[in-house]
């Protein structure tokens, strides 16, 4: 399995376990996850997100066969172009994670468009977590909304050459992002950690509408137990070929390297 939705480091509002590279790899071994796409949990609330990227770079250096680091870049903050260059050229980071509501900008802002354009020029993927935590448990200091799916719809349309990975989201089946007739480019994949596999079965609905090529496995670890996402694929009413695409194949196309 390849997990496109994993994290390292500390989170501001809750202690995390398994949040070092060694700890996360040990958890991956236990759960049968070959590779994981990671970014800094601390950078979500650091003013200077680049400090988090430096931490992730140091942590992952000895685990590049297992951990694929992404850069958290805040385009509304000073020096993002320098940070992007360092993350791509020096740290070998393969993509971005964007936190518009946490970093006080919107996906439609000019600065964000500039960042996505620059990342695309470098061949980097752009991962957008729809949320970090369930809003019901939010800390009293913060009230951060989910990224509106409508904003993502506009972004994927504006950047048809960019490869987007949408993580920690739900409700796609009822939005243009989940409909085959919405005239959007097929430049985005949807990660399954918050999608249902039973009852409402949003994963099944998205396979029917977009195809299994557009879904990717992710857990949200170590914020989340990885097991619910693993369980979803196990109980999903889909062909083994489709499941294999979701577990590994689609992400392997995005990140290359050993298929694991």
């Amino acid at each position, binding site marked *: 399995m390849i997990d496109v939705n994993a994290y390292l480091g500390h989170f501001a509002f809750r202690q995390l376990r398994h949040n070092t590279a060694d700890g996360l790899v040990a958890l991956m071994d236990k759960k049968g996850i070959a590779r994981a796409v990671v970014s800094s949990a601390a950078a979500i609330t650091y003013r200077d997100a680049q400090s988090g990227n430096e931490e992730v770079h140091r942590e992952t250096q000895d685990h590049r066969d297992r951990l694929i680091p992404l850069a958290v870049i805040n385009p509304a903050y000073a020096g993002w172009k320098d940070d992007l260059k360092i993350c791509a050229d020096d740290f070998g980071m393969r993509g971005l994670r964007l936190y518009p509501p946490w970093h006080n900008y919107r996906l439609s802002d000019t600065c964000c468009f500039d960042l996505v354009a620059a990342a695309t020029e470098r061949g980097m993927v752009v991962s957008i977590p729809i949320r970090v935590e369930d809003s019901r448990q939010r800390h009293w200091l913060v009230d951060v909304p989910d990224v509106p799916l409508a904003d993502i719809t506009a972004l994927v349309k504006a950047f048809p050459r960019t490869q987007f990975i949408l993580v920690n989201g739900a409700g796609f089946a009822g939005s243009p992002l989940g409909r085959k007739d919405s005239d959007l480019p097929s430049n985005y994949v949807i990660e399954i950690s918050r999608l249902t596999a039973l*009852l409402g079965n949003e994963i099944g609905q998205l396979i029917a509408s977009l195809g299994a090529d557009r879904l990717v496995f992710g857990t949200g670890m170590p914020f989340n137990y990885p097991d619910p996402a693993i369980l979803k694929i196990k109980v999903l009413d889909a062909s083994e070929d489709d499941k294999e695409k979701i577990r590994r194949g689609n992400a392997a196309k995005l990140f290359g390297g050993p298929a694991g």
Partner: protein
Amino acid sequence: MKRREFLTAAAGIGLSAAWAGARAGAAPKDGPEQKPGQPPGKPLVIDCHAHLHHHGSSAWEEDDRKLIEAADKLGIDQLCCSILTPRRPATVEGFRECNRWIADGMRRFSGRVLGYCYVNPGAGQPALDEIRRCVAEQGFMGVKLYNEHTCTEPVLFPVVELAIELGVPILQHAGHMNFFLESQPHLSDGGHLAELARRYPEAMLICGHVGGGGDWQWTIKVLRNAPTVYLDTSGSVVDDGIVEMAVRVLGTDRVLFACDNSMTAGMGKMIGADLPEADKQKILGGNMAGILSKRRSR
């Protein structure tokens, strides 16, 4: 579910071979009690917080069937279900109708669906009559309370006293947010349940959906010194460590497995929790079976 089917399902979702093997000897049955011949300490898997679907939805029958199919896939033997009115406060006719549909569900899915009697305690005597009728005459296993009243309000006291008399638990919808939830001004939280438990230490109170009720660390900590309050694990939140913290702070005996219809979230948390197998067995069904065995009426 046949033994071979259960073993396949249980092994397939990651339950341990030892647990699955022990469980395979215990087929779903009509009542919650362990029957003679069932290996001791090998409880059924009981989801203590589930919902059948309101018949106002045209898809209710299909949705009920899907719930049972999901339970089959996840190795859940019994689901303790209620139906809530779409709008609150529930009227007397509204909750009676929901309970009639639960009784129907108990017949349609005999041995799989156990029934909570849902009432609005503000209804007074009709709510008490409904609980007595459902539990004593129709075999319901507990009382479900939602958010019409905070559970420390005196209007609830007769309901709690009746549940004690009948020997059934009360599942209280609960949550604690670090902000005021305008849509649920009378929402109960773990602190309210702890207060109610101090007034009624004989009551079996279940604090609903720690994984869907906001700040779960707060909820677990506030219940530490309320030994007669159980905590159900349900909800869509699958934060790492939630089950382990509940066990560490409350003790294994006070934690109850549930999904609240978030099926893979509910079972996935249990698979992921880093706990001894014996503890998981208790949480998955043993503790709830103990609660159900205390019912004083049939």
